[in-house]
């Protein structure tokens, strides 16, 4: 097994501190009859340790952008470097390895595997990442404790509340200690209480030095971010950094 994208050793994992470097990224969905130009030339550079909120109206291309950042999909045009490595030309298994090592996803609808326990769900990325059985289990428990679900490890998703499920998803996203955590409207399906729990957890992660890109409609969450990127019609229209 060879990992095409080895982390470099200069501390921040990149040569210039840019963990995400997108230049002129376009994405066209070709659905047979019609072509949808979802992204029309995105320029986006994110440094290690940033907390970026992506906002914009529905259908503006936020999820598409997040999928491209997370290598879940490949751009139609432009160049994308993740952690200093070009993504273009990687095959499907190599992209899977990039996702496994560098990216943690948190989805609006949790996307846990229903027949697996919370623990097993958190173990899954480590199974794919080649972590041994014992180590997998130890780390999964640790991550679940960190999201305050140490007493729910053997529960299945159906036995958990929405907020708890999203916390399992966050634990899963962190399992492989990724460079970037991507969250697409993580509080969209939660009530206010669980929503703010999840928001606090995400802010905590940032506090621990992780890079975070979150798509949200939630004004409070957006305000916690150090940087707000607004997308409209497939283009970045504003990119504001909070004054420190």
């Amino acid at each position, binding site marked *: 097994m060879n990992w095409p994208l080895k982390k470099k050793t200069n501390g921040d994992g990149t040569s210039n501190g840019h963990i995400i470097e997108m230049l002129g990224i376009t994405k066209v969905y070709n659905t047979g009859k019609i072509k949808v130009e979802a992204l029309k030339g995105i320029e986006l550079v994110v440094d290690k340790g940033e907390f970026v909120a992506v906002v914009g109206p529905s259908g503006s291309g936020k*999820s598409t952008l997040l999928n491209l950042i997370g290598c*879940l999909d490949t751009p139609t045009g432009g160049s994308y470097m993740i952690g200093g490595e070009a993504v273009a030309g990687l095959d499907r298994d190599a992209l899977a*390895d990039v*996702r496994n090592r560098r990216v943690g996803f948190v989805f609006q609808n949790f*996307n846990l595997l229903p027949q697996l326990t919370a623990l097993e769900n958190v173990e899954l990325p480590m199974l*794919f990442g080649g972590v041994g059985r014992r180590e997998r289990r130890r780390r999964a428990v640790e991550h679940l404790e960190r999201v305050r679900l140490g007493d729910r490890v053997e529960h299945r998703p159906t036995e958990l509340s929405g907020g708890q499920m999203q916390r399992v998803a966050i634990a899963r996203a962190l399992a492989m200690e990724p460079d970037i955590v991507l969250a697409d409207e993580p509080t969209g399906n939660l009530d206010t209480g669980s929503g703010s729990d999840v928001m606090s957890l995400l802010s905590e992660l940032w506090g621990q030095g992780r890079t975070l890109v979150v798509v949200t409609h939630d004004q409070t969450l957006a305000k916690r971010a150090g940087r707000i990127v607004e997308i409209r019609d497939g283009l970045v229209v504003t990119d504001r950094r909070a004054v420190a």
Partner: protein
Amino acid sequence: MGRDLAVIATLFLKASSLQRKRAMLTVAAIAWGTVAIVMLLAFGEGLRHQLMKGQRGMGENIAVWWPGETSKVWEGLPEGRPVRPILDDIGYLRGRITAASGVIGELTSWSSSLSWGTTTITGRVTGANWEYGEMRHHFAQAGGRFFNANDEREKRRVIFLGDELAKDTFGEADPVGETMFVDRIPYLVIGVLEHKMQMGTYKGPDANGSVIPITTFSAQFGTQRLNNIVFKARTAEDMPLARQQFNEALAAKYRFDPTDEQVTGLWDTVEFGKVMAKIMIGLQAFLGIIGGLTLLVGGIGVANIMYAVVKEKTREIGVQMAVGAHRGWITGPFVLQGMTYTLLGGAFGLLIAVILIMLVRLVPVEGNQALEFLGKPTLSVEIAVATAALLGFIGIIAGYFPARRAASVDPAETLRYE
């Protein structure tokens, strides 16, 4: 590689099993297909065995010749001359056909009156040289024997009976040691034919005839003209040479063209056996294809269910991809699942087939001609191996195509949430 297998095994074990009912139907379909192919092939194999045995019933590596007329002009002699060798020619032929281990002559009386006590029937009597017993597989039941060289030399009036004929004449009584009459001349019964499977015959089944020494026959019926000559090649490979030597010897003596097939035409059981074997291979292939198609239908059932599972699990597949699953880790568990159902069904089917075969073999078949041929389904190593290989192949195919669809899932598209 080891790691790939570990991941696949882990996922396979974690995957929730299909709904029980669907899984059972699939396994049943495969089991049924397996039963079909194994039973068909086993019956074919049993039939082949019995036919081969029946073929040997008349004797092995023998050729049977009938008198004929010439159809070619030869050394100034016209066509249409009959060639009818006599008893004394047998010694001459024995000297010439070195590739044969035996040459005998036969004289035949088609309808003699055979009587014992108050019973009289009309039956066939053959006069033959004593070697006929071995050559034509006339083995005696316990307590009896076939006639020997002394009987032949001394022209003894001894008779060997076919088992059916013996039953018709003697009923339940033991014929051996009894005196019976052949056209009012008394004969001592010295043996009764041990029941045998006989496929080919040139004068009716051996079970329905009787045999006496050819010298005795010649004396009683006053004839020397042979009805048949039978010779046995040393081995199956020697048969062509034996036939050639026979043709040349006979042609030299009776002055005809040795290539005149009108005279030299005979029944070569070696040749005939080869044709039979080919027919049997064709039959086996035909049965195998029918059984294989049944099994294939079961395989399509498995593939169908697997497709349904892939469709149901599309989102889960997308999630696994999102967190870093390789293609092989997605497809592996599906292939394993398809294989598992197929092999499980195959194992069940094989078990059922073996039980059925054992039951069928328990049915008594003695005396019933049709059942005697059909009633012995036989499971051979070849059948087992062929079935297992076909099952494995279908299992892989049944898992592979659905798995390929699973691997082609587009995670971004699948996980899109509106």
